[in-house]
């Protein structure tokens, strides 16, 4: 279990850019032979090139392509169309605004339901109750599974004809029919339950790691002062979890913006469950693809991510530097 914990956390934290090789101190520089320098150069250079090619060039290329139409056949067929793609997207695409809305709902639900639940579970497990390892494993299990697999599992539960829920409550008959997957008023919430089921475990493990870092003497002191359990949590423990909360918020925003696999497996982003990531995919992948249009949607997704993430990170880092 413990290895999974340590593996999961770096994904959440901001990853340092690859290629940042340790700098040699001036006085020791002479000790490096030509070969050492070559090795170091390769170790730093190759990842840098890969990073630039696979991250920056692609991002910039897709921004450029957002102002073109291109079917992916021959580079001569790329045509500049200016803001046409965006205009079409905002004014004509019936799936675009629902998709933006669903991404927002996705974030709100994740932050309101599974995140406090994860915190609650973590606090309970931190008390070293009996079988706490068993509970920990049980709650963490969904996090280990891929979202696509979770999608398949929950489909078995939600399937309107043969699924668990409808079979148990008898809602698979004409007249009483509940269409969990197809009904646009229901399907988003059905999927969000599955997403929350996984997210709660994820949050639990983050908070559990945060709680391990709380100095035991703080608890002791508050116990000596006669604070109740709730008071201890509210006034002593929770404030010390501030760095963890930062990570949790960023992780949840990212989860909401990159939501894709679960929905893609569940119903392919049909009415009621449209998401930006799915619109990007359905426009770009395929035999006669609309690469320009799909890129325009991707740019919108990128802008939303930046608007949310950048100010928050700036504020957080400024605060931490001051502290």
């Amino acid at each position: 279990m413990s290895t999974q914990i340590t593996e999961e956390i770096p994904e959440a934290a901001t990853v340092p850019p690859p290629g940042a090789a340790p700098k040699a101190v001036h006085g020791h520089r002479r000790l490096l032979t030509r070969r050492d320098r070559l090795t170091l150069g390769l170790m730093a250079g190759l990842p840098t090139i890969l990073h630039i090619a696979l991250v920056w060039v692609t991002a910039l290329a897709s921004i450029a392509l957002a102002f073109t139409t291109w079917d992916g056949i021959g580079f001569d067929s790329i045509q500049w169309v200016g803001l046409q793609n965006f205009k079409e997207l905002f004014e004509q695409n019936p799936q675009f605004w629902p998709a933006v809305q669903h991404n927002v709902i996705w974030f709100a639900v994740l932050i309101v339901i599974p995140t406090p639940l994860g915190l609650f579970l973590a606090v309970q497990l931190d008390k070293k109750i009996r079988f706490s390892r068993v509970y920990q494993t049980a709650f963490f299990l969904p996090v280990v599974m891929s979202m696509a697999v979770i999608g398949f599992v929950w489909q078995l539960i939600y399937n309107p004809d043969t699924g668990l829920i409808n079979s148990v409550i008898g809602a698979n008959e004409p007249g009483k029919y509940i269409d969990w997957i197809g009904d646009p008023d229901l399907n988003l919430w059905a999927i969000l339950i599955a997403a929350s089921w996984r997210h709660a475990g994820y949050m639990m493990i983050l908070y559990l790691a945060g709680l391990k870092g709380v100095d035991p003497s703080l608890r002791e002191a508050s116990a000596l002062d006669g604070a109740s359990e709730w008071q201890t949590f509210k006034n002593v423990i929770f404030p010390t979890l501030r760095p963890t909360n930062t990570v949790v918020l960023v992780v949840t925003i990212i989860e909401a913006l990159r939501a894709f696999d679960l929905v893609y497996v569940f119903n392919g982003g049909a009415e009621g469950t449209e998401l930006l990531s799915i619109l990007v995919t359905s426009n770009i992948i395929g035999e006669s693809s609309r690469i320009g249009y799909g890129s325009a949607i991707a740019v919108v997704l990128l802008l939303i991510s930046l608007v949310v993430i950048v100010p928050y990170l700036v504020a957080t880092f400024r605060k931490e530097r001051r502290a």
Partner: protein
Amino acid sequence: MLDNLPSPSRRTLLRGIGGAAVLGAGIPLLSACGGSGAAADPKTVTLGSKASDPVPKKAFADIYAAYQKKSGITVDVNTKDSNTFQEQINSYLQGTPDDVFTWFAGYRMQFFAAKGLATPIDDVWQTIGGNFPEAMHKLSKGEDGKYYFVPLYSYPWAVFYRKSVFQQYGYEVPTTWDDFVALCKQMQKDKLVPIAFGDKDAWPALGTFDQINFRQNGYDFHVDLMAGKAAWTDAKVRKTFDLWTEILPYHQEGSTGRTWQDAAQTLASKKAGMYMLGTFVAQQFTNKADLDDLDFFAFPEIDPAFGQDTVEAPTDGFMMSKSPKNKAQAVKLLEYLGTSAAEDIYLKSDPSVVHATTDADTASYTTLQKKAYEMIAGAKSLTQFMDRDSRPDFTSTVMQPALQKFIRDPKGVDSLLSSIERQKKTIFASS
């Protein structure tokens, strides 16, 4: 930004990095796999295949083995997962494709022909033309009137039912729209689901639209509509949706949450009376007795001017890539693939489809196959299916969600149709 770079470096740079970068890694890998180095070997023809499922894969392999035995020419097959093959067809054909590749008839073939990514094969058709009915000739031509495609097999769409159910309730096969609606009403009274329906994958509804539209408005209008020439706001299209609205209450409830396989089960378990789908629905009838009980009829006539003259029959076959390394042998191979002998071999291993040729040996056909074959052979015009008759990007990003919306809310059809038309214009205007 791209135009400022010098030409040769722009190409290599973008081919290498940009391709992977923009479209997701893996795409250039496919083109790299093509050709497989056997370029100059005059005794080898390379063939890119999307037949990755075990049954068709073996059936195709049998054809190539028979050809090698007959001609001494090796067919070097490069099989890709069929979905991957379809998604990457663009970059595959632009890279170093195999001499011959498997593909679909219809707009999907014409699109690549018009882009210059396929070689016209009029010479092949001079040899094989006599083997095919008129409708197949029409299907194999590009927009420029040249032949680009060799059909191998085909399967029709129709309304499926169980003989025993029709017998039990004394139903008769409806041939006109009024009979069809009356039958639906009667089935509902008899506590059956009149029309099984599952549109979770979003494509089955396209088939229902096709049937009603070409019965009501005829083949020519249907083709124009699919090609982006006719308007979706045309009163004729509105009429199609009105007719659909009329029978929508008889369709199985909750269809957007149900797969076609699950819908087929309601027909198999005799809870539903009818089911409109391709003959592949038979795959869901695993019990031999149930399969023998399965039958179908052509979608009923709506406008007597058109009767039942159009049959939706998706056709799969072969094309030749833009600059084959061994063109002489590729032509010979295609000539062989256009014979009944080659199709016989295929059908022996995969009996879910029927011959595309007219002089086929139908002796070993099942009853369903015989009926399907006659239906196709007797058709005046063949359509392929909406996503093969029209631009796939239009059908997948606009039509699939639009029809799902219609099924849930048939009253909103007017705003839906104008939204389809607006989106269609921008998609068909590009490239």
